[in-house]
């Protein structure tokens, strides 16, 4: 039986290959998976194993020739004995995606042009019909990192979430009042983030388990409060870390956070500035979302989500009042943080925000 040997597809974006060397000559016998020829594409040389056992009876393209993927480059004759076993051998070769070669097209498809590309499972790409309305793009390095990180976190931690409602009216007013002062005195824009970082730091000191991580059967309590602040980017997401956040004044913290966020957008963060976080704050409310249930930033055990702030009618002292309200969510790792602890931590963050000490500004 005659078996065609085709130029294999070595990658989704590879359309052709240059034959650099034939390891076998016409008349030589080869066993299946024995190297038959070598090809070169871009910066890759590849050794192509024979798709079947047999005698090499025809070489269609000499070394040096560049050949499109799936074109027949040689023909093998499996002898009488081998032919008897060729039936089972051919499907076996097709199943064995372990070899880089594309399996030969079925013998019926004698003409190379008749060999449909879909018979090349060696190509990792899904071959799709012409005109299919999709566009395939490789993930960026950052996208891949985010994807791996998120899945890894879901696999690692027992995620549970708690949700609190916080009256932000005082802080909203304070921020309005101090915004021009900050611009003038500190040369930086006072945002809401420093208020959250400050309230979180105070509560983390009271509940050190929230600032911990899990290492095997140990719980590792982190003495430093290194607060990651998630920054949304057009091309993804990054979490720069405010190191020893509890040691900074509100002005210092504001400058630090703004500087990190700006450099994150300018792609100028140093590797050290996105590492070593012990707790993360993320802001899913930025586009008006009420609240999010974020994924924990490993190896941390909790992540605080800041919802959108909006005016709502609420009951204050048995009267209906208009207040600036916000949902505060936290996802935590139930392996080490129980609901009672998480809730007391959140209650403390809530109190810290509602009763924020104006003298700190």
């Amino acid at each position: 039986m005659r078996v065609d040997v085709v130029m294999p597809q070595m990658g989704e974006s590879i359309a052709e290959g240059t034959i650099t060397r034939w390891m076998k000559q016409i008349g030589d016998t080869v066993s299946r998976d024995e190297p038959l020829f070598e090809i070169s594409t871009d910066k890759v040389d590849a050794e192509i194993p024979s798709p079947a056992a047999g005698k090499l009876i025809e070489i269609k393209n000499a070394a040096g020739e560049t050949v499109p993927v799936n074109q027949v480059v040689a023909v093998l004759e499996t002898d009488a004995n081998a032919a008897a076993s060729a039936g089972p051998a051919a499907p076996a070769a097709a199943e064995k995606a372990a070899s880089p070669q594309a399996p030969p097209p079925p013998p019926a498809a004698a003409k190379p042009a008749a060999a449909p590309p879909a018979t090349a499972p060696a190509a990792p790409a899904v071959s799709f019909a012409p005109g299919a309305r999709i566009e395939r793009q490789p993930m960026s390095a950052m996208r891949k990192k985010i994807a791996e990180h998120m899945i890894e976190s879901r696999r690692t931690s027992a995620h549970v979430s708690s949700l609190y409602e916080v009256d932000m009216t005082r802080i909203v007013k304070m921020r309005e009042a101090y915004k021009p002062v900050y611009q003038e005195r500190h040369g930086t824009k006072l945002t809401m983030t420093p208020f959250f970082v400050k309230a979180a730091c105070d509560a983390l000191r009271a509940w050190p388990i929230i600032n911990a991580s899990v290492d095997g059967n140990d719980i590792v309590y982190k003495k430093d409060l290194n607060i990651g602040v998630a920054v949304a980017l057009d091309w993804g997401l990054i979490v720069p870390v405010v190191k020893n956040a509890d040691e900074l004044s509100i002005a210092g913290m504001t400058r630090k956070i703004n500087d990190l966020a700006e450099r994150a957008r300018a792609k100028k963060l140093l590797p050290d500035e996105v590492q070593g976080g012990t707790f993360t704050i993320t802001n899913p409310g930025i586009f008006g979302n009420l609240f999010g249930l974020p994924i924990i930033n490993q190896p941390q055990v909790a992540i605080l989500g800041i919802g959108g702030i909006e005016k709502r009618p609420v009951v204050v002292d048995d009267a209906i009042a208009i207040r600036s309200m916000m949902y505060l969510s936290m996802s935590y790792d139930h392996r080490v943080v129980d609901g009672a602890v998480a809730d007391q931590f959140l209650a403390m963050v809530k109190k810290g925000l509602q009763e924020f000490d104006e003298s700190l500004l």
Partner: protein
Amino acid sequence: MKRLLCAFLGRVPYAEAVGLQESLVDRVRRGEAADTLLLLTHPPVITLGRTTKPGHVLIEDAARVARGIELHEAGRGGDVTYHGPGQLVGYPIVALSGERRDAHRYLRDLEEGLIAAAAAFGVQASRLAGLTGVWAGPEKLAAIGVRIGTGWVTSHGFALNCGSDLSGFEAIVPCGIGDRAVTSLSRILGREVSPEEAAPRTASAVAAALGYEAAWGDGAVAAGSGRGVSWPPSPGDAP
């Protein structure tokens, strides 16, 4: 995560490194050895890819011999390259599987790993479209040339320029790209970075880009090479 056995072998003559790779490729294909990243340096050597154009070796044979530079043909992709002291050479011997069985994907993964390794030193490196390798601005920081054997087992790999002495490159047109200069971590940082120093972070970054976790070991590699590991870097050094 899968573990990539990493070892720094110190200075290894080119021919010996080729032999070590061939034996590891066989053993990895048969499942007798773990996927491995060999890290080493070479004595001065010019290696030719199968597609090397003759004019890309600039140095005369006599001058080359006088300078103690060896010449070898390498069964890898790419054009001519130079290896020498001050350059961290990495040979990942790994069995690609699943969606990673894509030659271009593999090149891009190696580039990603090397860019991350440079970033770990505070050096911003990038790809240049159409030119495989890793670049700092317009200058070449790392070269890549690989081989994929039966069973999608890789060999050859990358060379990251660490030290400041780049004079060996004068003997060649790097990778056949005439108008591009070479640079190194030391040149960029203004302090001497040795291949030994670069090895741990490079191993971690390349392992991660290939979907592995770097694990430092000497047993399997040393047994295969008859060569001890001269410097087992601590994984704690990795970022």
